[in-house]
């Protein structure tokens, strides 16, 4: 699994610094955006490869996916240079790149909606741990065949 700070550095977390206040403090949107993006990366990785990309533990908060490891990794990652894509393993690079390409620059509401409509957040109780690997298996088993039938 890729450590939290590596994922954040690949995301170029300091680019999100435009959302700082005049006093240099980070505003809520940067945290939310990173939570949503990193969660989508882990969910996509779980769906496609059966394992998360990062070592984050995900929980379901009122507003969406929450990870204490990610929260504590954001601030230290801010002043470090972004990692080039080549530093990530090929499979990781593809997943991170596809999420960033599609969702990296969308409005925060759009990002929130897409993250909150994923299977783990739909079926899990508030404050429960999201076992993405197990939920991905359940999702593939229960929903993918149904989608093929209805298509």
């Amino acid at each position, binding site marked *: 699994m890729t450590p939290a700070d590596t994922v954040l550095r690949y995301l170029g977390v300091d680019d999100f610094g435009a959302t700082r206040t005049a006093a240099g403090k980070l505003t809520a949107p940067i945290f939310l955006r990173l939570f949503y993006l990193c969660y989508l990366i882990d*969910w*996509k990785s779980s*769906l496609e490869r059966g394992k998360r990309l990062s070592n984050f533990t995900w929980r379901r908060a009122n507003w969406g996916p929450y990870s204490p490891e990610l929260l504590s990794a954001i601030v230290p990652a801010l002043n470090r240079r972004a990692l080039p894509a080549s530093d990530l393993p090929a499979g990781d690079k593809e997943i991170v790149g596809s999420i960033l390409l599609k969702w990296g620059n969308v409005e925060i509401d759009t990002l929130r*909606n*897409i993250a909150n*409509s*994923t299977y783990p*957040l*739909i079926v899990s109780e508030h404050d429960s741990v999201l076992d993405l690997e197990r939920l991905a298996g359940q999702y593939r088993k229960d*929903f993918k065949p149904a989608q093929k039938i209805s298509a």
Partner: protein
Amino acid sequence: MISRTAAVFSSIRAFAIRHSWAMAIACLESTERNGLLRVERQMLQSRLAPLKIILGALEKHIASLDAATGEGL
């Protein structure tokens, strides 16, 4: 005295479901023996109209699995 309609519609339970379009399922129960036999489409439509309005208003605020599955997530 309980009206005939009220007896039929003693309970309505509704679920908002989305599967490419907005849909609601209403479960009707009657306290009156064979009361459901008298349920007519026109009666249902008029009684469920407020529910339809409420669901329509809530639709944008309800996370739908379709949004994520449509994006391969």
